[in-house]
């Protein structure tokens, strides 16, 4: 009996939520933007930070009266699909987006999903913004994917160069989870480090994604005594444990990664041991965050109870989509127009202090502009929060 009541209650709750959503958006025409990514199961953190950034921003826009494109004011609706990190579901999600008449989709979060949805996106005229790094997705003949963040083969060299010049790092070791995304990132990192003339002392140690004890994993790496330990493509869940194990094994060097991390997770999981940990962030450190960024964080926190620092890098995709359509309203249902607009598009970056701009880049990596220009903000963790180490640009 109990379970049935629960089912009824949750069904009722869902129906009410849907109806409320419908009512709130009744005045303006609605512009739907899609999200296909993982919001349940083990990797839920990746997609949820994504989805919530989009929903926060959409609610904010709608509260302010909507978003004006070519003289018409739209309310923004985010349509999310949970692909459970399964490439087969991701295709179903993209089909659903096509059916909803959506032309702009954020996601998927991982390499295999991003590759799997490509045929559907290209057949249905959908631009999608994956958080996956394989170059084939963005290099011709592929043309519908836009990399939604800074790739590790772009941030890696910048970080290693900084550490080599400023901290005297000479040798580097890599560890990665035994999974597509981290392994690819590790290979990219090794190539970048070698190109800079760093000595790669260990690069073939991997761990299972479900590892709970990293001491045996890291022991052989520590024996090579690197100056820098790179955690390639590390998930926010594993980062604190890896840091803790490395430090407890007596590692004195620098630890870094090229993915975004969350400060709360790091301080809960590793405490002071995480001090000095270098990761890639968005724009929420006090030095560079604009008032709009701060308000975004406030609104996110109010809406969902707790902010996730990973969202710093994920706030941009929606902004890019909307700004680009605004720059050329014909793009609202024609991605070919969107693509031509991308080449010349430029707008101020509202989330960052100073004269940063939103524009599409990627010519040197992909041969075409298929990447959003987000500031490459390299953070260092110190006493429970991130501080900006340096800011760089990606071309």
């Amino acid at each position: 009996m109990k379970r049935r009541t629960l089912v009824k209650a949750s069904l009722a709750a869902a129906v009410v939520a849907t109806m409320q959503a419908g009512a709130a958006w009744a005045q303006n025409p609605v512009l739907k933007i899609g999200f296909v990514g993982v919001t349940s199961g083990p990797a839920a953190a990746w997609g949820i930070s994504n989805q919530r950034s989009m929903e926060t921003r959409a609610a904010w826009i709608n509260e302010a009266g909507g978003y004006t494109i070519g003289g018409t004011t739209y309310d923004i609706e985010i349509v999310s699909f949970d692909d459970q990190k399964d490439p087969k579901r991701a295709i179903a999600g993209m089909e659903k987006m096509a059916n909803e008449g959506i032309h702009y989709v954020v996601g998927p979060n991982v390499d295999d999903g991003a590759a799997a949805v490509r045929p559907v996106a290209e057949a249905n005229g959908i631009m999608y913004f994956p958080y996956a790094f394989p170059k084939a997705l963005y290099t011709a003949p592929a043309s519908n994917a836009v990399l939604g963040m800074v790739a590790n083969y772009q941030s890696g060299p910048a970080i290693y160069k900084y550490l080599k010049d400023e901290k005297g790092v000479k040798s580097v070791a890599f560890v990665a989870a035994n999974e597509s995304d981290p392994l690819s990132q590790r290979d990219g990192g090794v190539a970048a480090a070698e190109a800079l003339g760093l000595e790669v002392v260990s690069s073939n140690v991997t761990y299972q994604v479900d590892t709970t004890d990293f001491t045996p994993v890291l022991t052989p790496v520590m024996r090579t005594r690197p100056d820098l330990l790179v955690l390639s493509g590390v998930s926010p869940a594993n980062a604190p444990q890896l840091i803790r194990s490395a430090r407890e094994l007596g590692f004195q060097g620098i630890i870094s990664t090229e993915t975004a991390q969350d400060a709360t997770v790091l301080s809960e999981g590793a405490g002071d041991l995480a001090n000095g940990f270098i990761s890639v962030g968005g724009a929420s450190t006090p030095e560079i965050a604009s008032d709009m960024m701060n308000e975004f964080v406030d609104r996110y926190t109010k809406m969902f109870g707790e902010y996730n620092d990973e969202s710093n890098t994920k706030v941009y995709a929606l902004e890019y989509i909307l700004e680009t359509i605004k720059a050329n309203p014909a793009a609202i249902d024609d991605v070919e127009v969107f693509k031509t607009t991308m080449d010349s598009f430029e707008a101020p970056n509202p989330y960052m202090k100073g004269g940063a701009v939103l524009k599409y880049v990627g010519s040197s990596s992909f041969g075409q502009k298929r990447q959003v220009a987000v500031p490459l903000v390299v953070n260092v963790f110190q006493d429970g929060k991130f501080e900006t180490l340096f800011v760089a640009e990606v071309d």
Partner: protein
Amino acid sequence: MLKLTMGQWIGLGVFLAAIFIAVPALIAASGRTDFYFTLTSVALLSIASAGVWLMFYIGRINIGQGAFALIGAYVSAILVTKAGMSFWLTLPIAGLFAAFVAVLIGLPILRLRGVYFAMISLVLTQVVTLTALALPITNGAKGITSIPLPGAISIFGLTLVPDFASMENSRLAFYYTACFLMVLTFAAMYRLVNSRLGHICRSMQQNEELAASIGINIAYIRIVVFAISSFFGGIGGAMFGSIAQSVYPSTFVVTDSVNFMLNCFLGGLGYVFGPMLGTLVLYFGWDLLFESGKYQLLIYSSLLIAAMLVLPNGLLSLRLDMFRRSGK
């Protein structure tokens, strides 16, 4: 030749008309073109689930079908991209290769029974995933991408199947292909279950020693059934690779293997068409709950538990007596 009753012929006709005519017509009328892919998935996953069901039929819980689906997907992808073979030729090869691997693995592990076989088959998926990550021919972590769409089949200049790449929309073509394969699979299953082999399987399910004592070579039968089961897995996997035009080590994972097994349980282990219904309900159910947002998994799992409480023997145990011919 099997004798079907009048009712069964009618049922078969209605079913075929439904999937080949009514569904496309309804989709065209309602504009829900996204259902093509969902139903294609259901058809392909139910082919793989049919293999798992067959293993249940000899009393083995197979939680390793994902391994064979992954093998099939890779074999087809490698042959298409590296050897330039036609996809249609690679499809049976993928199935046969999966069956061949099944024979090799099956020789030792089919001696295991009950939960032991279940648990070791659970490990199989991970073994194949890890192997795919480590081997150069599978392109390791980077996966195989940009696989061309299936080409045309023509005999004596007569085009039987047009080139998928030249089609306006390949969704319908994939849907028909998947349904066609599904019908073939279940026809073969029905034939098998109602053959002498089917009777032997049923006796093995109940008591292997007894079956052996009346002169049945149970080791041989087990291998044959496991090979057939894996053949279905390989076919389903290869088709998926061709739809996604990419294969990664994570294309089929342990979760998929568990889902194949759940499809059989939900549909009903005693009914040949159980896996088809189970796949439809489990996969389509998730899609239909899309509207419920963050409560999707909660509602989905609650319904699953409720279904188990109400119908512990599977959904098909609801069927009327007159249809209860197949199965035990």
